[in-house]
């Protein structure tokens, strides 16, 4: 197919593939890149700045699509720790599960994980959106500052601990909420937000089946008499 470039990581170095994605793809007029035999390599398609479509075949290692800007990246497999960390824009779609700290500190864009996400999903989220088709592990959305996380399954312990302005929508059971996180009533705007994110992720749950978790904002003002209890 014209305009599609294919790399095989079993025969080409990752450095070469990433250099092509960073620099050479634009000059060659290539819009789509396929990467075969990911085999758990680290930092695949990290640091992209162009609106490329990148397909990764196999399981990706640490930091796949990290710092992504504008690109649309699909992992046909599982992703290792820190997938989409610090993403600025674009989309990353993981068809399997994601390891710890998925979407950590993401400023923008959409990260979709069709399977489960492990612990600390969306930690320190700064404006990106995350949709998880399955469950998330403990300490997810810890200190998340802005952005939205949609969890179609269950959440582990300490969900949304020390949240700032980020909002979590969760459909399943929450083992425990973190400090200063609380359930809040869903409004029409919340239902619309969940609908929009599910549509973009290609998932078909009823937005009415989700609960909203947001910050109670008690931690916004330090209270020395609270004895660390919030």
């Amino acid at each position: 197919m014209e305009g599609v470039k294919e790399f095989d990581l079993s025969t080409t170095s990752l450095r070469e593939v990433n250099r092509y994605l960073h620099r050479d793809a634009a000059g060659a007029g290539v819009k789509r890149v396929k990467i075969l035999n990911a085999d758990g390599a680290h930092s695949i398609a990290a640091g992209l700045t162009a609106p490329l479509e990148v397909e990764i075949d196999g399981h990706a290692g640490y930091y796949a699509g990290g710092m992504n800007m504008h690109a649309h990246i699909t992992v046909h497999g599982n992703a290792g720790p820190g997938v989409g960390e610090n993403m600025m824009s674009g989309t990353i779609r993981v068809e399997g599960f994601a390891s710890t700290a998925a979407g950590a500190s993401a400023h923008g864009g959409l990260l979709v994980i069709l399977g489960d996400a492990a612990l600390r999903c969306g930690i320190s989220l700064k404006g990106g959106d995350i949709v998880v088709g399955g469950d998330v592990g403990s300490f997810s959305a810890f200190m998340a500052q802005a952005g939205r996380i949609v969890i179609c399954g269950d959440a582990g312990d300490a969900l949304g601990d020390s949240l700032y302005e980020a909002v979590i929508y969760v459909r399943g059971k929450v083992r425990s909420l973190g400090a200063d996180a609380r359930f809040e009533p869903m409004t029409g705007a919340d239902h619309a937000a969940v609908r929009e994110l599910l549509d973009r992720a290609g998932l078909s749950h009823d937005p009415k089946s989700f609960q909203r978790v947001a910050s109670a904002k008690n931690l916004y003002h330090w209270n020395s008499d609270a004895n660390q209890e919030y």
Partner: protein
Amino acid sequence: MCGIVGLLLKKPQLREKLGELMTPMLVGMTSRGPDSAGVAIFGDAVTDSHKLSLFWGEGVADWKRLAAELGAAFAGKHRFAEIGQHAVLTTPANPEEVKTWLAGAAPEIYVLSMGRSIDLYKDIGTPAQIVERYALNKVTGTHVVAHTRMATESAVTPAHAHPFTAGQDFCLVHNGSLSNPHLVRKKLEPLGIRFVTDNDTEAACRFFEWRMREGDDLTTAVHRGFSELDGFFTFLMGTDKELLIVRDAFACKPAVVAETDDYVAIASEFRSLAHLPGVRHATVFEPKPEEVYSWKA
């Protein structure tokens, strides 16, 4: 950092290929642990005798002299399978008595493991160097527990490399760091439990082995460890009967399992599993925090 590797073969006909399948797994974890590596191999148990894996720590190994002295001290036929500084001694004598004797007769020797099933190799160097040094790509058996080390809290010596052992046919490798190993040690030493190194992992290994001697099975011992051992850990353990993995509540230290009808393969990262036959169709998952996963050999 550190790398962990485990492989348990479910089909007897694959046992001949244990070393061949394990070697790329271990070498794949070199960047996580380039300073030392070790492999514990579990195979068919010897009957009417015990095996001791020995490492000659200082000077040039003289296994012939040791064999003669051992023969004079203990009755029966003793066999040494030696490669350089390393030997597996098979002896009809009581292994504890042999170990005590070795401490006096050859104090430069470390007893790396003891039991009827386990052989243990560990040394400083890259995983590839250690595989080559001890022909580990040729080993056979039912399962291995292996480790690549990047030292963070104690010296780089063969004795500080993993796996650690305690008692018989038991070993443990660790990715992480414990914050209370000295407290654990203070608790165990008055019970007569002796430590060989100042390494944090040794405390966990001796704790679990002590619990098993007190009647716990390994899974029960691990559950007890959740309240006794403080710190970060992914522990991979082997006995002659099982392979077991557990991660602490925060699961900061990675682990991936790939299971097929032929094998259970475990590594810190998928890139060490990617070469395994049939891995594309394997069930792949990450062990959940504080959940014990165990497979029978």
